[in-house]
Each structure stands twice: as structure tokens, then as C-alpha cells.
């Protein structure tokens, strides 16, 4: 429920919203110019919301394929494919009627998101509905995977890791390549580096999924390949992130003066941090301690809260005043939100680091005869304080989310502004 709500609810709606905003602007074409695309866009929104509702309800009813991030049963998979194809038609339709000859780097990333997820989702969700295969026996919603055993695990983690790639990374880079230059009024430090990083990321990311299956039954060379590609992945990831930090070259006073730039800068920093931490965890000897411990969700959360969360929050802070033609309701509320959430994330990942490594070390400890030194409950007792810190971190982040929602809600009725005030830095009320 939690991962699906974050990936398919929060992040995917952020991807769709920013695509419809960014796509039209950088291609210099309005969807209103095509009745077909406008109708399709509205239908896309309605079906997406219905699809998410169906996914939530079915999971609450206990329908699950039990594959991580791919829990939805076959009728909902079909609905998701339909919604996704509609988005694809919208992307390529808009590109088809564009005025700008070349595609801005963000558009490349959105296209990659569409193609990547389409390929991954289709292959990992190959499943056989048992009701039809058995001639009418059992629950109509139930299905079994087309793959078995180790193959199933391999396909699952090829999908699972690349769901992180094409939902939590690629479209978020699309966002930062638009919103950071636009909000700061600075050209991308090196557009050429952005192109090189794009192709680097596309080539390398798809091979790294094997690191989820280290020390499992998959062939050793696949595990090694997963580790090696994970390390190589630092290069294109840092290529994009450093490009973003250098975009602010000579303009660092903006970080102090604008809370929106703070969000964008920290998003980029968390991306660097997360893409260094992940490869370190994929090294076999580190993974021997880290695997199955709290260090892994700790890593996932500095990526999802710090990078994905901050980036979508910043994108909506940038878009809302331009859509409503009003200034952002409160700069001080936004600044407070930034510090509360940053503190929350720091609490979260630091406690999970300590918890994870402690857990890993305790699991490995044994006496001279090879008997395990600690029981499971021993580890739970030791980890208890870190779980409380984790809870405090999560609560701080959640408080920030409510502050964000309130700020956006109040922006709808804030002071109206002229189009000319919206060129780069977002106008904000006190």
C-alpha cells in the first residue's frame, strides 16, 4: 500500500502534472490547439484517478499478486496499461504539433519514462488469470505469474529496480532540468553534459537490477554484473546532479533568499547522496551486512523523500502561481516547511543507518561453535530507540506535507499578479 501509493499515486501524478505543464511550454505549443489532445488529456486525468481508486480498493480487499511494486491483479494491470498508453499518445501527439524543432532535454527524459515503464510493466506483469485457465474455478481476480522460481525473481528485480529508475529518477530529472533553470533564471551549466548523462543513464540503469538478488540463487555473474553496473551508475547520476549544482554558479545568493531554490538545491543534493549510497550498498561485501536490514529502507527514503518528494513539492510551488496567476501565499510558511522536512529526512536516514548496520552486525555474530549470538527479539530491543527516531523523522516530513498543501490551497486566493512577474523567480507573499 505504502510503496504503491507513493509510486503510482504521488509520484506518477507529479509526473503527469509536470509533463502537461513543461511539455507545452518547451515545445511552444498549447494543447488547446488540438481538440483531440485536449479531450484526451481530460480523459487521461479522469481514468487515472479512477485507476488509482481501483488499485487502492483492490489492495484493501486483499487482492494482490504479492510481487513488490507490481501487486495489482490483472484487471487493474489492464486499466494501468490503458492510462499509460493515453499518456503516450498525449506525449507524441504534442510533439507532433510542436513549434520548437528540437526536443528540450526534459522531453527526452519524459519519453524515456514512458517507454521504460511501458516495457518493464508489460514484461513483469505477464500473468495467467486462473479463473479462465482452469475453466471457471476460483476467484476471477486471481492470477499466477508467467515466470517461476529464480526467473520470476530476476524479472521482478529487473522491473523493481528499474521502477526506481523510470519512476523515481528519470522523470524527476526531467523536472529538475526545467524547474531549476527556469526558477533561477540561469541557463543549464552544460547542456552537452545533460545529453551525455541522459544516454549514460539509459544504457547503464537497466543492467543494475541484479544487485537486489546478491547472495541468492541467481547465477554469480549476474550478481557481479549488477554490482559493477551499480558502481558505473554513479557517473551519469552525478553528471546530472553536478550539472544542476553548477547551474547555480555565481547565483548562490538565491539559495539563501528563495525557499523554492532551497528545495531544488536540496533535491539535487539528495540525489547525489542517494546515488552514491545505492552503489555502495550494491558492493557484495557491504551488501553482506546491509541486505534485508533497515539501512535499505533508509537509503530508499533519502531518495524518495529528499529527491523525489522535494522535487515534486518544488515543481508544484513553481507551477501553482503560474496556473492561478497569483503569488505564492506565504514565503515564511514555505521556508519553515523546508527546514522541518529537511530535519525530518535527516532524522529518518541517520537512524536507519545506525539501525541497519547494528542489525546486520547482530545477525552475523556467532560464538566459537557457529551458534548465532542473538535472537530476532534481541535485535528488536536494540533497534527500538532508532525506530522512535524514524517515527519522529516521518512525522516531521508529514507535518511539512500538510504545510505545503495549505500553502497551495491559500495560493488559489492570494494576491493576483501580472504575467510579467512570472518570468523566472516565483513571486511570494510574506
Amino acid at each position, binding site marked *: 500500500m505504502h510503496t504503491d501509493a507513493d509510486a503510482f499515486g504521488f509520484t506518477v501524478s507529479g509526473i503527469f502534472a509536470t509533463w502537461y505543464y513543461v511539455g507545452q511550454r518547451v515545445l511552444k505549443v498549447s494543447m488547446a490547439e488540438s481538440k483531440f489532445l485536449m479531450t484526451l488529456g481530460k480523459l487521461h486525468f479522469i481514468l487515472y484517478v479512477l485507476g488509482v481508486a481501483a488499485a487502492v480498493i483492490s489492495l484493501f480487499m486483499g487482492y494482490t499478486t504479492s510481487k513488490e511494486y507490481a501487486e495489482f491483479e490483472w484487471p487493474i494491470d489492464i486499466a494501468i496499461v490503458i492510462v499509460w498508453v493515453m499518456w503516450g499518445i498525449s506525449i507524441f501527439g504534442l510533439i507532433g504539433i510542436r*513549434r*520548437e*524543432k*528540437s526536443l*528540450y532535454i526534459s522531453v527526452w527524459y519524459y519519453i524515456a519514462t514512458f517507454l521504460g515503464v511501458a516495457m518493464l510493466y508489460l514484461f513483469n506483469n505477464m500473468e495467467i488469470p486462473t479463473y479462465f485457465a482452469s475453466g471457471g474455478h476460483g476467484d476471477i481476480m486471481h492470477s499466477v505469474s508467467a515466470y517461476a522460481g529464480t526467473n520470476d525473481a530476476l524479472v521482478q528485480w529487473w522491473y523493481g529496480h528499474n521502477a526506481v529508475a523510470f519512476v523515481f529518477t528519470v522523470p524527476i530529472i526531467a523536472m529538475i532540468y526545467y524547474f531549476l533553470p*527556469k526558477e533561477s533564471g540561469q541557463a543549464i551549466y552544460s*547542456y552537452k553534459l545533460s545529453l551525455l548523462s541522459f544516454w549514460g543513464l539509459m544504457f547503464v540503469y537497466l543492467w543494475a537490477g541484479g544487485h537486489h538478488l546478491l547472495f541468492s540463487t541467481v547465477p554469480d555473474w549476474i550478481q557481479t554484473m549488477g554490482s559493477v553496473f551499480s558502481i558505473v551508475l554513479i557517473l551519469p547520476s552525478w553528471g546530472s546532479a553536478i550539472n544542476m549544482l553548477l547551474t547555480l554558479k555565481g547565483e548562490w545568493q538565491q539559495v539563501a533568499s528563495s525557499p523554492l531554490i532551497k528545495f531544488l538545491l536540496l533535491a539535487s543534493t539528495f540525489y547525489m547522496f542517494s546515488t552514491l549510497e545505492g552503489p555502495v550498498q550494491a558492493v557484495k561485501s557491504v551488501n553482506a551486512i546491509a541486505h534485508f536490514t533497515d539501512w535499505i529502507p533508509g537509503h530508499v527514503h533519502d531518495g524518495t523523500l529528499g529527491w523525489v518528494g522535494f522535487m515534486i513539492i518544488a515543481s508544484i510551488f513553481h507551477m501553482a502561481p503560474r496556473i492561478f496567476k497569483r503569488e505564492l501565499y506565504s514565503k515564511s510558511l514555505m521556508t519553515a516547511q523546508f527546514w522541518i522536512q529537511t530535519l525530518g529526512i535527516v532524522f529518518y536516514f541517520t537512524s536507519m543507518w545506525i539501525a541497519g548496520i547494528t542489525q546486520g552486525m547482530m545477525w552475523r555474530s556467532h560464538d566459537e561453535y557457529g551458534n548465532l549470538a542473538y535472537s530476532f527479539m534481541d535485535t528488536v530491543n536494540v533497534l527500538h530507540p532508532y525506530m522512535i527516531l524514524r517515527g519522529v523523522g516521518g512525522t516531521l516530513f508529514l507535518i511539512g506535507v500538510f504545510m505545503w498543501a495549505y500553502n497551495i490551497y491559500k495560493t488559489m486566493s492570494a494576491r493576483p499578479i501580472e504575467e510579467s512577474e512570472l518570468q523566472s523567480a516565483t513571486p511570494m507573499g510574506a
Partner: protein
Amino acid sequence: MDIANIQGYAYVFAMGFLIVVLYAYIYHLYTKRKNADGTDYEEYSNMALHDDLSDTPVADRFDAKKK
């Protein structure tokens, strides 16, 4: 030659090939602007900075067709 040998040669060949492709791409990015009708990729940043419907495109798709 057994399968492990073939894999080894394929690996070395693939590494060499990909390195050539990578450096050729970097070379292409840096040299294309030097030609008379070349592209300075750095100008593409302006697609985001000047993105109003009424702004002039970096390269107009329909103008390009007329040429």
C-alpha cells in the same frame, strides 16, 4: 573455442566499441557548432528560459522546413 572464450572476446569487443561510441558522441557534441549550419547545443537551454507561447523558438520547426 568454448563459450567462455567467446564471451571473453565479445566482452572486450563490446567495451572497445562502446568507448569509441562514447568519445565519438562527445566529439560530435563539441564539433557540430563549428560548421556553418551547425548547432550550439548550449543554446537549447533557452527552450526553458524563453518558453512563453509568444517567444521565438530556438529553431522554428516550420521555418526549418521551408529552408
